[in-house]
């Protein structure tokens, strides 16, 4: 591990927090003792590992400079994410460098924490464990998160070695109902694997598969392949859910049934399939299903769900016409009393459409082995009864997510509570001893998200603090208690290397091994018939609004809450950051005269929380939605804003023992206060200005009228002038000779609005996190933002959502350039719109003159430790990219197509004297885009991918009539809906 010692050449340009002040007076250099062959100061080293921000287990490459991880990118060899990453994955770094991390072992005394030595801590814990083991069976409990591989096995072994079987893999989003449904319908209690790429027709019953559901990055890739317009074909996507979230934005059609009746709707459709004689099941199954489904008469269903019966008939027809199709369900938001039934129904729908084995397979996944909410409740009651002496919590925070199970009170009854946690979160705060855990980027492991995919996890950095990996701690504890586990392995590294076998090093380099696992064939079981199907019930007055608690794209189940990047990432649906809001339908709002930003008390029974009203056409009338993840009481400086809707829930479970996240009807009572929303949203409509364009599939192919702001004569004149200018330019000083022209193409048919690009940009370009108060003033610094416009009549469900990533367009005739008095903004030879931070004096004229409004100003000194607004406190500063200047106060900044990457690649190419190719340069946003919507390259090369996409018939430039000649070409998003025309035209 010495090769990653921090004995480095004195922080070679630690990204200039000292804001470049000439000579390094008195600065010290610390050379290596022995140079590390694969670490050259100034040259990045990459380590393959696995992202553990959620159970999906994406493969990552960690970019380190001088031994410090500074950026995470997807591992292109990895079958799950194919080199892409979501916002949460990008932000893992801020977990590693979390300024509020627990930096050494501590013992709690009342409310105070006293540092103790590792030895002392381990001694205490091991003795307690031994004592507990001697005093009886099952007196030790271990609560962990999703895990697999040797470390997972080790935990089991560890608990067993202390005569206990109480080991729970607790995930707040464990999708038990889906697993249970698989058992009931197909006899295998397993989470299916979905192939969105192959599906020609996708129907989602509230599964947010582009946000948090199972493996969103993987799904986004597949979804973009099938649903993204290609050669005139694209899959149709129907979102069936009472609340239309980010995933629903990509839908061609939104069907909003009464909350809790989705199961019935699904069964109704399945029934219709049979009645239309389109079912693809045969033999006994067919008869059984027909019989069962006949119970769900379409007229009745239509009445129960509030969905027209001909809609049901149509959906059935379309769903079976397309081959193969895919229906998904199991989203947390719709995890209500009837969740298992809903998943059963959707399984049946897939069965009758013949999708099972095609788009729906059962290879076995990491979720299969997760414990249920009921299991946790079992442990809670045991703890409550004093049946547990020692509890070890690792990598999960039930005190925050499982308040409903009464976790906290029972937990406090346990004699010794040990946290193997690197964060002082709610659960850790309740513990007696905290043995700080490595961050996944410091730890060893093998992770198998889906059987057949073994993803290695290795340290990319030496421990930032005095922490130890949980597995190591377990080994040491066992050793102290004279037990041998893990086959007597020394530490986790040994465990992993043993498991990898002889060619461990190659494995470590590649990061993942894939073996083709034959998906287990499944056959229909009849058990589901015993379930009782009906509308889900919700506690509370009939007049109340059904409360949907929605997992947050950024914060997941709340574990992302102490990461500034994620807190400041505008929610893709509402565009609000930092705050907790409650979504209400315009009609509901009008009736109760609620307005954006009104502070309301959300009351259920005697429990209540406060939230800000956001009037949102994406929820059904009679439904209110709140995001999960904020409202922490502990966990760190960034986490404590907002409120936690989970604290409203009672321990209601569904048939599978899962917590019913949707179980309440709530009332909203205004407090009379109003707070400006920390939103990036200006106007939610684009007023026909053709920024994010939609086109109906029907209108594609045939020459549809494209708005042309100039007459033919004008066009010729402009072209002549441009060529003249270009000719002139290439004879001028630095512009002489051949240069590439860097351009970008963004395919809106693929973009899902997931905002991974935004966080990637934060990570790559040292963007400061400015905080709630500044976002309320629209002072957020995101160089790339996602604009979300509603198109069409938003009163009903028949509207489209147009999303567009807006970043510097690198205009050839950039309006921002000529107005800068000091040439801080100018045009580079390779077609970039250069921005020289250290030359900028801050007149801000460029920003006024930018029609795309993509220039961002440093209102405060975010980069200087002396300043009250310092954005990189503590170890967060270690993440800063040394290749990018940290901007000082008073200067303008903006996207530069990651010019530092371009220059680096050019230098590399020159030194190893070969030609520069597009493959060498990828801006952070393009690199991470899970949907592969962003293409970057040299537009002067007609064969480059970007040139190809530029020539696409859907290509257009925003505000063409300004003749700014943008370097970013957008490709119109194609939708099945017919009303899309609304947004298609340039504003005229």
């Amino acid at each position, binding site marked *: 591990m010495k090769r990653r010692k921090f004995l480095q050449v004195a922080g070679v340009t630690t990204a200039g927090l000292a804001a470049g002040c000439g000579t390094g007076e008195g600065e010290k250099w610390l050379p290596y003792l022995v140079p590390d062959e694969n670490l050259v100061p100034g040259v990045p080293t990459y380590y393959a590992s696995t992202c553990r921000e959620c159970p999906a287990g994406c493969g990552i490459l960690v970019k380190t400079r001088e031994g410090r991880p500074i950026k995470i990118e997807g591992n292109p060899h990895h079958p799950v994410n194919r080199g892409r990453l979501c916002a949460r994955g990008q932000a893992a770094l801020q977990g590693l460098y979390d300024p509020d991390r627990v930096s050494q072992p501590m013992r709690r005394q009342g409310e105070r924490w006293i540092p103790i030595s590792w030895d002392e801590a381990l001694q205490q814990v091991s003795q307690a464990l031994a004592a507990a083991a001697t005093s009886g069976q099952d007196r030790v409990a271990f609560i962990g998160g999703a895990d697999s591989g040797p470390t997972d096995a080790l935990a089991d072994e560890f608990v067993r070695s202390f005569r206990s079987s109480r080991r729970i893999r607790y995930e707040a989003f464990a999708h038990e109902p889906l697993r249970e449904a698989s058992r009931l319908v197909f006899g295998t209690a397993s989470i299916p694997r979905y192939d969105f790429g192959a599906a020609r027709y996708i129907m989602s019953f509230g599964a947010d598969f582009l946000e948090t559901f199972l493996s969103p990055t993987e799904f986004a890739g597949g979804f973009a392949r099938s649903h993204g317009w290609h050669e005139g074909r694209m899959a149709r996507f129907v979102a069936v859910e009472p609340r239309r979230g980010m995933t629903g934005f990509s839908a061609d059609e939104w069907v909003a049934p009464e909350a809790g009746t989705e199961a019935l709707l699904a069964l109704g459709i399945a029934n219709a399939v049979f009645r239309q004689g389109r079912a693809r099941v045969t033999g006994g199954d067919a008869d059984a299903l027909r019989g069962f489904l006949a119970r769900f008469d379409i007229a009745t269903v239509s009445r129960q769900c509030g969905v027209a019966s001909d809609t049901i008939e149509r959906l059935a027809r379309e769903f079976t016409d397309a081959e193969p199709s895919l229906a998904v369900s199991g989203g947390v938001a719709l995890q209500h009393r009837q969740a298992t039934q809903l998943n059963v129904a959707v399984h049946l729908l897939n069965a009758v459409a013949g999708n099972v084995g095609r788009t729906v397979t059962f290879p076995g996944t990491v979720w299969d082995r997760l414990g249920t909410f009921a299991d946790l409740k079992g442990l809670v009651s045991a703890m409550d009864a004093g049946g547990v002496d020692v509890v070890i919590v690792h990598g999960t925070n039930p005190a925050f997510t499982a308040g409903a199970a009464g976790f906290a009170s029972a937990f406090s009854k346990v004699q010794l509570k040990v946290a193997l946690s690197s964060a002082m979160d709610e659960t850790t705060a309740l513990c007696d001893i905290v043995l700080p855990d490595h961050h996944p980027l410091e730890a060893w492991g093998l992770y198998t998200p889906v059987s057949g995919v073994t993803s290695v996890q290795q340290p990319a950095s030496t421990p930032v603090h005095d922490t130890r990996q949980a597995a190591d701690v377990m080994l040491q504890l066992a050793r102290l208690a004279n037990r041998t586990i893990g086959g007597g392995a020394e530490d986790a590294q040994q465990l992993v290397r043993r498991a990898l076998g002889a060619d461990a090093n190659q494995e470590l380099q590649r990061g993942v091994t894939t073996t083709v696992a034959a998906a287990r064939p499944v056959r229909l079981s009849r058990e589901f018939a015993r379930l009782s199907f009906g509308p889900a019930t919700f506690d509370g007055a009939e007049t109340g609004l059904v409360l949907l608690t929605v997992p947050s794209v950024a914060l997941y189940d709340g574990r992302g809450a102490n990461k500034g990047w994620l807190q400041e990432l505008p929610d893709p649906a509402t565009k609000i950051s930092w705050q907790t809001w409650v979504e209400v339908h315009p009609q509901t709002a009008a009736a109760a005269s609620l307005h954006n930003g009104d502070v309301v008390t959300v009351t259920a029974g005697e429990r209540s929380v406060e939230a800000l009203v956001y009037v949102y056409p994406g929820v059904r009338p009679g439904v209110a939605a709140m995001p999960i993840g904020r409202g922490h009481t502990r966990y760190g400086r960034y986490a404590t804003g907002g409120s936690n809707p989970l604290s409203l829930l009672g321990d209601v479970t569904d048939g599978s023992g899962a917590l019913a996240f949707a179980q309440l009807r709530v009332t909203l009572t205004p407090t009379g206060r109003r707070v400006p929303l920390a939103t*990036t*949203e*200006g*106007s939610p*409509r*684009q*007023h*026909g*200005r053709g*920024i994010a364009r939609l086109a109906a599939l029907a209108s594609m192919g045939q020459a549809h009228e494209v708005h042309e702001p100039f007459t033919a004569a004008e066009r010729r004149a402009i072209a002549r002038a441009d060529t003249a200018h270009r000719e002139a330019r290439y004879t001028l000083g630095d512009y002489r000779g051949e240069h590439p022209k860097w351009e970008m193409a963004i395919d809106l048919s693929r973009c899902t609005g997931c905002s991974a690009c935004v966080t990637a940009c934060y990570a790559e370009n040292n963007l400061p996190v400015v905080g709630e108060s*500044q976002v309320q*003033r*629209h*002072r957020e610094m995101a160089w790339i*933002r996602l*604009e979300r*416009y509603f198109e069409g009549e938003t009163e009903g469900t028949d509207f489209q959502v147009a999303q567009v990533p*807006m970043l510097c367009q690198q205009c050839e005739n950039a*309006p921002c350039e*000529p*107005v*800068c*008095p*000091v*040439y801080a903004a100018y045009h580079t030879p390779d077609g970039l719109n250069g921005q020289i931070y250290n*030359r*900028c*004096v*801050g*007149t*801000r*004229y460029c*920003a*006024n*003159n930018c*029609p*795309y*409004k993509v220039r*961002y*100003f*440093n*209102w*405060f*000194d975010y980069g200087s430790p002396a*300043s*009250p*607004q310092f954005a990189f406190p503590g170890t967060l500063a270690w993440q800063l990219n040394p290749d990018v200047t940290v901007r*000082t*106060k*008073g*200067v*303008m900044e903006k996207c530069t197509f990651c010019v530092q990457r371009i220059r680096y690649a050019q230098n590399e190419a020159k030194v190893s004297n070969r030609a520069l190719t597009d493959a060498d340069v990828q801006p952070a946003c393009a690199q991470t885009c899970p949907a592969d919507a962003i293409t970057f390259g040299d537009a002067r090369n007609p064969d480059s991918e970007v040139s190809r996409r530029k020539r696409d018939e859907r290509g257009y430039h925003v*505000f063409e009539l*300004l003749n700014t000649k943008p370097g970013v070409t957008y490709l119109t998003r194609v939708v099945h809906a017919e009303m899309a025309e609304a947004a298609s035209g340039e*504003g*005229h």
Partner: protein
Amino acid sequence: MAVAVEPKVMTPRATPPTWAEVNRDIIKTLDPPGRGWFLGMAVILTGLALGALAWARQLKLGIGITGYTPPIFWGTYITTFVFWVGIAHSGTLISAVLFLFRSGWRSAVYRAAEAMTVFAVMTAGLFPILHLGRAWFAYWVAPYPNIRGLWSNFRSPLVWDIFAISTYLTVSATFLFMGLIPDIAALRDQATGWRKKIYSLLSFGWRNSNHEWRHFMRMYLFLAALSTPLVLSVHSVVSWDFAMGIVPGWHATIFAPYFVAGAIFSGCAMVITILVPLRKAFHLERYITVRHFENLAKLCLLTSSIVGYAYFTEYFIAWYSGNPFERSSFYNRVFGEYWWATWTMISCNVFIPLLLWSKKIRTSIPWLFVISLFINVGMWFERFVIIVTSLSHEFEPWQWAYYTPNIWELLIVTGSFCWFAMWFMLFIKFFPSVAIAEVKEALPPPGRTHAGGGH
């Protein structure tokens, strides 16, 4: 304002003052200041200090302490900058243009107006620096030879500004001082002690001899001739700060004349605002007569209607062009979140000045004073509306926002008014605020009954 030493009321007499009286009365204004003057000065300096503190804080923490809300990147500072540049205009107009037109009534008022011009430019010049993100690098905007081999971008209207404003300051200051020389000589000949020394120095040994007058009058003529296009150019350049931008609501060819008219409009109003108390305090009723005010009022009326016409044209063209961005921007001006600013502007600049059609009001000093105040407010709001509402409602709907100035900006703006007032207060106590020589020119020379002055 200051109160004269002995408050004896002087009623305007039918007979014009003699040359001797002119000297006596005007030089009297330089008598040691009274309590009122010091009181006013105290208030002014306090305001100035507060403004300075606000700026210090802004320099330390960053310009973020203001209320700026992207995409409104320019706010009260630039608004006030344009306001002061506008104020600066009538001075030169009255002294130079009217001089060329040989309109005699200028002689009594032009000195005060010209002083106002100089100090207004000095105030305006502060704001481009004030509003910079990195004010300590303001000098980078100037094209000075430097070791980096970098120059400034002469395509940028902001660089034009540097040249226009600095030229204007230099030339108008020179013009003012040149006009002062004969008067300083008169002061010198009356003064005693240290004052005499200073005035002798400043008068360059002026002797009122034909050898001096001969060249002086030429020089004065040519300065006037040069100042006239300058005064028109300066506000045109300032207007191009906006017109050169592509922002809907800025990008209009009408801007230069529109701004120049507005500038003269606000300038004349400010002259009235200043002259009324000055005249009262110094008992200059015999020199600054109602006729002068009426003429100023007529100028206001004229320019007001030009400005009003410009407003109309803006809206008409916005509609007629069919350009959706322009249309939306102007619709938003009148009916959007900033309706209050727009309507303040229109009523103060177009409706209220209509009162001046009535001779009764035009010749009533109190009325004029009140109206002039309204016009000042209105013209500040005109710039606010042009700058802020346009920026708040640009091409990109996602980036529409609402901005209101906060306390720090207001402190600095107030400070700028105090800065202006301070200089003016000092001026009127050290130099004659009415031109001795030129007033005499307009009067019958001793031994004659009608003024044969002029050239």
